[in-house]
């Protein structure tokens, strides 16, 4: 699919992997190592920070619930320190609670913990290539937030005012199960530009001030003060 995926350059791609459940950590590490990535595994936030101290990785994969803190903090730190690092959240269910809260602090994708090894490698490869994965349920969650409702819906807070009508159309297409090719043809786009739009959507949903993010994290119960 892409020259990055299977060339010798793949050796150079560094991944920091933060997951506190040991079997899951091994599994993900296995899948990525076999695909040729250089993986630094961590089980706690402290270990992950130590790994990051050695330099910017290309990719950061992190769980959210960790023994010594919350993955959201690490995502935000990393996003500020290494703007070029691609960040993905490892989610059990791919639900909007975990994924959206990670997106608002700077993640641009998610990975299911039980994904097949080939899918894990492919998702990371796409991410490095600039293609952010998005699920139908996440897309649905975002577009529903673009519709005005009298009372705020449950779930994490999300500011969708920056999204353009075209981006909202793309999200609708994804929510209804259309492929990128179908969406592109419906909207008169080139198929290759759809993943770029999705990454833009993620970037627009990111909350940029620290205070705002902390406030929202507290709001959604991710941080307990």
């Amino acid at each position: 699919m892409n020259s990055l995926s299977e060339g010798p350059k793949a050796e150079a791609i560094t991944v920091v992997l933060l997951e506190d459940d040991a079997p899951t950590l091994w599994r993900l590490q296995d899948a990525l190592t076999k695909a040729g990535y250089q993986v630094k595994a961590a089980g706690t936030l402290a270990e992950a920070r130590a790994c990051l101290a050695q330099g910017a990785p290309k990719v950061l994969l992190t769980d959210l619930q960790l023994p010594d803190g919350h993955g959201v903090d690490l995502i935000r730190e990393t996003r500020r320190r290494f703007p070029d690092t691609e960040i993905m959240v490892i989610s059990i269910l791919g639900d909007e609670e975990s994924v959206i809260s990670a997106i608002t602090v700077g993640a641009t994708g998610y990975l299911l913990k039980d994904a097949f090894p080939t899918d894990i490698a492919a998702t990371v490869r796409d991410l490095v290539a600039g293609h952010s994965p998005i699920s139908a349920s996440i897309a649905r969650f975002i577009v529903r937030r673009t519709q005005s409702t009298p009372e705020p819906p449950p779930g994490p807070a999300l500011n969708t005012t920056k999204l353009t009508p075209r981006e909202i159309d793309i999200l609708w297409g994804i929510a209804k199960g259309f492929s990128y090719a179908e969406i592109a043809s419906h909207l008169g786009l080139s198929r290759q530009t759809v993943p770029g739009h999705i990454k833009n959507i993620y970037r627009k949903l990111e909350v940029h001030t620290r205070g705002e993010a902390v406030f929202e994290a507290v709001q959604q119960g991710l941080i307990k003060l």
Partner: protein
Amino acid sequence: MNDHADDAQPDLPGRERRRLQASRLIQYLLLQAAIAGACVVALLQSLPGPPAQYRMTALQLTDAGIERAVTLPYFSPRRDAMNDPPRFSGQFVRPASEAAQPWSVFVPRFTNGVEVTVNGVVILDSRRDPAANRPDRNTPAIAVIPASVLRDGENAISIRLFIWGPITGFLDRIWVGPDAELRPSYDLRTLIFVTLPVVFSSWQAILAVILGIMWVMRRHEPAYGVLAAAMAVGVGQAFLQTPMGETPFSKLNVILISSAPIESALVLTFALLFSGWKWQRYGWILFIPGVLLALAGLFGNQAMVRALFLILAVPMVGISLLIMAVVTARSALKRPNVASLLLGCAVTIMLTCWIADLLSVFQMTPNRIFTSRLSYSAMLVAIGAGLTWRFARALNQVDGFAGRLVSQVREAEEKLKVSFAREEERARAAALARERTRLMRDLHDGLGGQLVSIVALSERGNGSAGIGDAARAALKDLRLVIDSMDDIGGDLMLALGSWRERAMAQLRPHDIALDWRAVTPQGVPVHPELRPWHVIQIVRLLDEAVTNAVKHANAKRITVRIETLAGADGHERGCITVEDDGKGFEITSDGTAAGAIKAARGLRNMRSRAARCGAELELSSCAQGTDQGADQGTRVRLTLPHRFPDSDGAAG
């Protein structure tokens, strides 16, 4: 008067409005002129009298010692002394043939009092009748001549005319004849000039009570109070008798004497208030003539009062009528309504009669019938009719208002019901969303993490692939349950979108392609009544179809077609078809699979799920080896109902 507001004309351009007002003014003036003309014609009519043969017009008048011949009707100069009144004397002949029936003397009109003597015997003294003593009433007098007094042939009659002002004396023609001939004329005059005013005075009393109650209940409309006071004064004036001479109560005459200017001032105030005028201090000016007259009555003598009456009361009545005519004309122009129009017509009638009376006072008409007091009844009728009109209109408005209110309340009720249902629905959705969020967190923190660990562990160990698959299937189902609880607003496409992702993840390791075709752009129709449990049944049914294709058919490609079909009944129905290119299986005549028991159970499950949602399930399968190349494999065709059932239908 607030209730005139709805009569106000909408704003028109100036020229238009002026033209409209001019035409209205002309119409109004023409109407009033017609009424005045009709009044004049009516006033010119003389009342029918008894046969002319009994009339006496030529009499000898003895006044201040001088005797001369006069012809009736006769106007006598005013005098303030009661002694030595003018005396009219004459002769009449009673034929002997008439002796059988009683004869009478009929004096139809006189001011102020008469004493009739026949053959030296006094048979009538009008001064004993208080009603007859009032010059403003045209009280007639009749007296039967006692048979013993009357002779056959010539008889002498003499009439003494008492004059006490305030106007000149007057004696109309007199009749002497058979009582039966004179009586009808007397009765007619009594009816018109005595009975009718009493009736109207009673009516006025009733009006006074009604208006008084109205004012008590509606204190913010002082016009009613003023009118009630006017009516009360009028009633007092009509029913209190005027005793002659100086009695202990004679000072009460003040009330009666000053009643005319006070009543007219009150009625004028009412008309002004009624036309929208706000009471001002200078309004008291209107009551000055009445008060002056009352003071004169209290402290002065009768002669002075009578003199003042002419210069205060009579002009006051006239001025009041003139102002009222202008005011009612203006309000008839500005806001035409029945009450103002009636009032205006009554004022015109009264004004005409007042002018006629004035002419009569100044002896410019040959007769002296005062009609002002009588014409006041037109005003009373107008007030009564106007009141009734306003009352009926107010009732209509109340009815209309009540009707509007009822319909508004009904509308509001409907809206409330709808909004309540919507609110309930929203609250239900919000509760479901909260529950879903809670469940999601619980599952995420507990069960989900454990299942992921099982998957990871089973991949590390050997020969435990079955456990991993089971755990993965459990995770997939967990995601389905959470996903189906999400509010998708009845758009099944949103649920199918998530399902597509899960199905693709499921098929990828088996190298089976998923061909997804949304044939119609919007996919399947939106169903507002779609509930999470419908979604779960449909998605599990589709899962079952895909799982069958993976496990039993050895398929390489699965095609999902989503389309909207126009049904035979005109309703649009969604249709989802899952088709594989696998080996297919035999379907027995009762629609169950003839093959493996497991597959048969799967098919039964699918039918049951479809039946619960009211959907139709159509299965077709061709075992490999038949010639129908294009149709090979298995096809599951699910036709969604036009409307999803509210409750869980019976399992088919």
